[in-house]
């Protein structure tokens, strides 16, 4: 895959992701949007971003969860937001979220509600 083809694939995938910011996206959708196969999409993402498309989509969903938690109101819960974005294994979700952002989802939620972040266990 040449640089031009690689950039075309990545740009079209990014444009599709940008146009569907508020909805979960599947890898098949990215392949269709970029007019390429899964293997070429995988190779392009690894060469440009260093991660696989699957991992990139998960990072995007984590960012969406964080965005919603930071704009949360009193009725919002972490479970509702996480399941809405496709995270059904909440333990794994909390672990990935903390690895990426360095804090637990509940801490982000308390910040979004305007309060102080919850005390982090030692």
């Amino acid at each position: 895959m040449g640089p031009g083809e690689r950039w075309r694939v990545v740009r079209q995938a990014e444009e599709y992701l940008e146009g569907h910011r508020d909805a979960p996206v599947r890898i098949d959708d990215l392949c269709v949007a970029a007019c390429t196969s899964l293997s070429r999409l995988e190779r392009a993402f690894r060469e440009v971003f260093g991660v696989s498309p699957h991992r990139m989509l998960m990072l995007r969903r984590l960012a969406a969860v964080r965005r919603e938690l930071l704009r949360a109101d009193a009725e919002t819960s972490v479970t509702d937001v996480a399941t809405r974005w496709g995270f059904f294994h909440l333990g794994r979700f909390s672990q990935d979220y903390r690895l990426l952002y360095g804090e637990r989802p509940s801490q982000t939620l308390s910040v979004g509600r305007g309060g102080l972040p919850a005390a982090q266990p030692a």
Partner: protein
Amino acid sequence: MAARRPHRRCGQRRARLASGGRRSKVPFSCALTEPSRWTHFVARNPSDCRSSSTAPPTANSSRCRSAPRRGHARALAREAIDEAARRLGASRRGYLQSLLGAAATLAAFNRAFAAAGQRGGHYVLPAEAAFEPAAAQVALGGDEFIFDVQLHHVNPQGAWRQERRPERVSRHAQQQLRQGRPRRVLLQRRTAEGRVLRQRHRDGRAVACAGWHGDQPARLRCRRAPRAAAANALDGTERLLLHGRCMPTLPGEIDGMDAQIAQFPVAAFKTYTQFGPRDGAAGFYPRRRPLRHAVHRARAQARRAPHRGAQGPAVRPARLRVLERARHRASGQAPSRT
């Protein structure tokens, strides 16, 4: 079965990668010392002065060359890459070979140079911008606009002026001629000037061509209307980089670099080196002394980045108002619309 021999430079035996299970050609610790075999690895993560081979690379200043400075930059880069790869769930090697790894490395160098009092720290990004698209969008959002006014110095009596016969050009060029396109498609493709002038005429770009009368440049054609329209379309949110002109073989050009810097916030100097001494006394080859003088002057005076390319001579004071808005935006201040 071939025996495993130690590597000729570092003495280590070839290691088996834990991820792919394949044998690496070069031990990882030795990879950085062999740019010829690992060019993709090193070129994306430069830690020293580099060149595009059109001019000899200019050595870093003594402050940058000092071991603590360089060690600081490399330590920052290594720390940023390790942290980013760990948080993204990518392997360190894979992340380092990606474009994101190169961006993280350059960002670390930017911070290191800014901390050392060197040129750097242009774009102040919050720490979370690397992992939060919204934070990055706040800092870097907006349309990019590259205002690149191009000027080509060519030999008016050169072979490129001999137009090809219409029946000898391609079908695409013939179709362009029938549609009323300019006759530049008839320029000689095999000459450097012909290739440049054919390629540089694109929509949205302003092009000025210059010829020579003796040893003095003479402008042949200057299309100012597209350039003025592009400048008027700026709304103050674009990042605008001004390029200064330097033709080092012309009298007064090198000394004139200071005047350009004093008058305009020049971001870089550009010159064209596509003609040789056979086209007149003003011609030069890129590796010769005149260009080196210009490079040294640019680095010594203002640490601007000289590079080969076109130049922007017609920056008018009226456009500085637009530039000031872009600078206010880059510095984090609210642009004032006047």
